């Protein structure tokens, strides 16, 4: 059943776009079931969940409760630990500002890994301009966090440590248990950006013992405009958006009921299918990387020696003349994070890993997803090889 749905999706995509999409880390298509559910919630069960007196309102409330339970179960949390937001960026802002505001007096210090998403770096920078100390913890050549440096920085009272579970550009995964242990021993809270994790590897926020985590629906075949913040039970947080007091007073604004219901659906599916999805992505990534390395001499797969989420490969090809990405015909890929691609700057992730600017600018991220096929992967590797050939 699951194979058939993805196959159908893949076929539709093939005929519609005639381009091979290989940018699933930037965003994913919305599952048809999720889109159907949203359509129903927008047209028929459209009530305002705060209107508890009416059947319309109660139906909407029920849909939110179900969505919350599904998301909570998928990430290994309790339902009351999940706060819906408009996306992962808002969740990052909310966690960082919400914690720092409370701890500004006692522990005015925030540590982030050097390869965080701008949604974490920029709020941290804002805290720094408000008087907190912001330190970026370096990573090694493979993108792994320097635990010795972290431990050294934790000698001073620190409010929170922000580390992403899996990097969006290279896919590198961090040693979370070690980070969490170091941080907790020093009395610091841990915020973990788990946006790229859902549906790719099995995990549980309770097992990882992180204090805060953020998720995004549109990275796992759900709609854009919805995400969630996990907040461990008992932790205090100041709200970012104030008003009608929705989401237990932590996130005001009429709940995006259709998107919450759809997020619940796709999160539930992601958690249940995670092993099949991981196997599919692992197989394709292995094929892609071996084909590319065979066809292009001198190509480097970034973070290859580290543990990575399946489906993400960042290829660098030193010595090319001209823009490698622009030579990829028929392939939709990117040179790094979509959020940074507008600025045309070399990836700060690769820079932090010690890759020189020229090579960083010559890098291509291929991120595969469930609709990707062996045939597509072959075409991608051929296109990469052809593009590299032209620029030599």
């Amino acid at each position, binding site marked *: 059943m699951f194979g058939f749905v993805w196959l159908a999706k893949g076929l*539709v*995509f093939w005929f*519609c*776009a005639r*381009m091979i*999409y290989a940018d699933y880390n*930037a*965003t994913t*298509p*919305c599952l048809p079931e999720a*889109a159907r559910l949203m*359509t129903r919630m*927008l*047209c028929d069960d*459209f*009530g*305002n969940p*705060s*209107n*508890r*007196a*009416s*059947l*319309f*309102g109660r139906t909407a409330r029920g849909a939110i409760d179900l969505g919350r339970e599904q998301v909570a179960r998928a990430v290994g949390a309790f339902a009351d630990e999940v706060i819906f937001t*408009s*996306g992962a*960026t*808002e969740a990052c*802002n909310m966690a960082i500002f919400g914690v720092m505001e409370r701890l500004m007096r006692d522990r005015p210090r925030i540590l982030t890994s050097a390869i965080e*998403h701008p*949604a974490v*770096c920029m*709020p*941290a*920078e804002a805290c720094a301009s408000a008087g907190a100390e912001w330190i970026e913890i370096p990573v090694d050549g493979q993108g792994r966090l320097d635990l010795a440096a972290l431990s050294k920085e934790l000698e001073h009272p620190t409010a929170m440590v922000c580390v992403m579970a899996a990097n969006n550009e290279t896919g590198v995964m961090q040693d979370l248990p070690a980070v969490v242990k170091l941080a907790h021993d020093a009395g610091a809270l841990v915020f973990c950006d788990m946006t790229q994790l859902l549906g790719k590897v099995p995990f549980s926020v309770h097992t990882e013992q992180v204090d805060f985590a953020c998720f995004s629906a*549109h990275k796992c075949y759900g*709609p*854009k*405009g919805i995400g969630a913040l996990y907040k461990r039970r008992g932790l205090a947080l100041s709200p*970012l*958006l*104030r*008003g*009608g*007091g929705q989401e237990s007073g932590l996130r*005001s*604004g*009429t709940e*995006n*009921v*259709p998107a919450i219901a759809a997020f619940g659906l796709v999160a539930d599916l992601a958690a249940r299918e995670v092993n099949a999805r991981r196997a599919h992505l692992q197989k394709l990534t292995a094929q892609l990387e071996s084909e590319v390395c065979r066809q292009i001499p001198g190509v480097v797969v970034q973070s290859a020696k580290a543990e990575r989420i399946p489906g993400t490969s960042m290829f660098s090809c030193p010595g090319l003349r001209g823009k490698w990405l622009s030579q990829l015909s028929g392939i*939709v*890929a*990117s040179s790094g*994070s*979509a*959020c940074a*691609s507008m*600025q045309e700057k070399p990836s700060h992730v690769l820079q932090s890993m010690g890759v020189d600017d020229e090579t960083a600018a010559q890098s291509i991220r291929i991120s595969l997803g469930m609709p990707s096929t062996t045939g597509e992967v072959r075409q991608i590797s051929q296109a990469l090889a052809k593009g590299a050939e032209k620029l030599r």
Partner: protein
Amino acid sequence: MIYWDHNSTTPCAPEVIEAMKPYWDHEYGNPSSSHIMGRRASTAIRKAREQVANLANALPSEIIFTSGATESNNLLFLGILLTPKTDRNRIVVSSIEHKSILEPVRLLAEHGFEVLKLPVSECGVTDLNAAKELINGKTLLVSVQGANNELGTLQPVCQLAEIAHTNGAYFHTDAAQVLGKISFNTELFNCDFASFSAHKMYGPKGIGALFIRGGAKQWPWSRPFGGGGQESGLRPGTQNVPGIVGFGMACEISQHYITNQNNNPIHHLEKILIQKLFESFPTGHFVTRNTPRLPGVVAFSFPNISADLLMDNIKTLCIGKGSACTNGAISQSHVLNAIGYSHDFSRGTFRVSLGRETDLNEIQESIILIQNAFHDVQRISKQNEK
């Protein structure tokens, strides 16, 4: 089921759904990506931005998409909060603003801003004389909603904007209830900022906008949220492309309703509804009857009966009691409080907000439903007294 709570939220128009569908399905690119899929998504956003701007008579660059009116309001006040304070530190709002204005200004007050609330008349209109007194050279911002969500009463936005501007203050209006219902013109209303919400005007939930005169370049305060720099850095985060497209379409179809405002059947239906309500409940009250209101919004009060009980006894009619956002809590509506309603009186007040799909049959049916429920509730309370 009859739905008469359109001030709380509305169903999505079919055209809106049709417009959104491709963006869930195959046009799913991330608008920040520089590849073809990304460019197609950002083109869709550009078109929607024009549609929203057209309805509000603004420039597309002056529209910043947010997750809703609550976020738009918070964006404004958080910006003020995070900017170094100057001598101008007075914030003036009306006392019947939505919670998403009142809560952020409470935060500003905690941080040393001088927050003043304008009184309202018993008809639910902001007092202009008080405004002239309270808005002075130390005023940074005046924020008054276009129309009240609980009473539907229109506020004197043009005059307030003028008072604010002669004192060198900015003027913001929460237009969540206005956009798409009556004509809203940022030029005419002379506002510097305005908040919009799509789900109040037959668009999807989870999307709204903030109008900034002159665009993001003219934003006078700090940018409170950090991230990938989307929406000119004012509202980072991957844009909700389907939501934005749906909002744009909702604005486009609203043009039709607004230009044909005089022929809008809702005025006629409202008249019949009020007449029938008074016929059935001669002791009822409708204080804002003669105040200019949003079409189809009636806040009707029964003396000595609980609107909650009444609503519990009408299973097939959905009406509101005050703002949906305060429905969860058993507290008295701050709006009814501000217009001088006693506790007993506001307890018996319910709000009807008619919509585009309301027809005469619904009115006839609902009156009977309300009548039956009224008698049931009266009987129950009499039994309880015994």
